[in-house]
């Protein structure tokens, strides 16, 4: 379960990113993860619930959005999306493709309110 270590990194990076702001409440952290990133949303949720009590993220929500695989057919050159590998080309049926995306995982954005700001 490497999700805990990654979430720990994510929280310290998020805290750094928020440092310049007078944060009242962190509402939401949105993570985007490709289906090939080997990140289990449930394991991330569990790590989030374990690691955040007592921090500025205690009342925040973690949203994990899954991104599809982006592929380019080695046969006809068509670019297409897929949910899993191997992924045959929808244009020519070719079985060999170059994977362009789907292994990435990143903290996309943080939503929060500022002190003195009415919601």
């Amino acid at each position, binding site marked *: 379960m490497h999700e805990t270590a990654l979430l720990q990194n994510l929280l310290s*990076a998020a805290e750094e990113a928020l440092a310049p702001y007078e944060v009242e409440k962190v509402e939401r952290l949105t993570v985007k993860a490709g289906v090939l990133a080997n990140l289990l949303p449930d394991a991330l949720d569990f790590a989030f619930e374990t690691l955040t009590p007592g921090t500025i993220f205690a009342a925040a929500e973690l949203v994990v959005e899954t991104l599809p695989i982006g592929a380019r057919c080695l046969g006809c050159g068509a670019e297409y999306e897929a949910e899993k*590998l191997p992924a045959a080309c929808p244009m020519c049926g070719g079985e060999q493709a170059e994977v362009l995306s789907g292994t990435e995982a990143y*903290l*996309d954005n943080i939503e929060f309110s500022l002190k003195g700001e009415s919601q």
Partner: protein
Amino acid sequence: MKLDLNMSLMEKNDAIAAAIRAELQQQGVYSINIIGSPGAGKTSLLERLLPHLPLQTAVIEGDLATARDAQRISACAVPAVQINTDGGCHLDAAMIKKVLPVFDLAKTDLLIIENVGNLVCPTGFDLGEDLRIVLLSLAEGGDKPAKYPATFLAADLVLLNKIDLAELCDVDIAQVKAEIAQINPKAEILEVCCRKNHQQGLEELAALLLAKINAKKTQE
């Protein structure tokens, strides 16, 4: 308000891996990261391969517990360091960086890292390697590439080990190769057997690695 970040979860690891890669490059050290399930034969591969490599090699062994694998490598008269992750499911770049000073890198040609036995978790963690080998034992069954696509996608070279057991385990080697090619058409594939008295494919593997190491040297 909303702050757009686009900050990779691997950022910290990737930064350390880049620093390792730069240091190894500067010292003229080629580096290999070997990933495979528990018992796939990673340490056996090293025991059989090392005698075929006319290079100064250093080995980092990753395991949850024990120094057994490092002892097996030391018995081959190759310097080896054991990292115990104490439950951790993979090696990360920070662990490698920490042990690198143990080796005399100026006198080292090749660094081989045996990752923790695990076909999933090590995949996303760059260790600064030049070459990633995924070692699949055919005794695990031929369906593993399809079940662990991200792992095989990240491989430069896939070794099919325990080919002596393919028939016993009803594994169709041609089918396994075809499934690997569907996931990762760029990966090279070699068959090996790492049993002491039934070795196969190791000279070919050594020649392939030496060619890659030389190609990188002339590139510089």
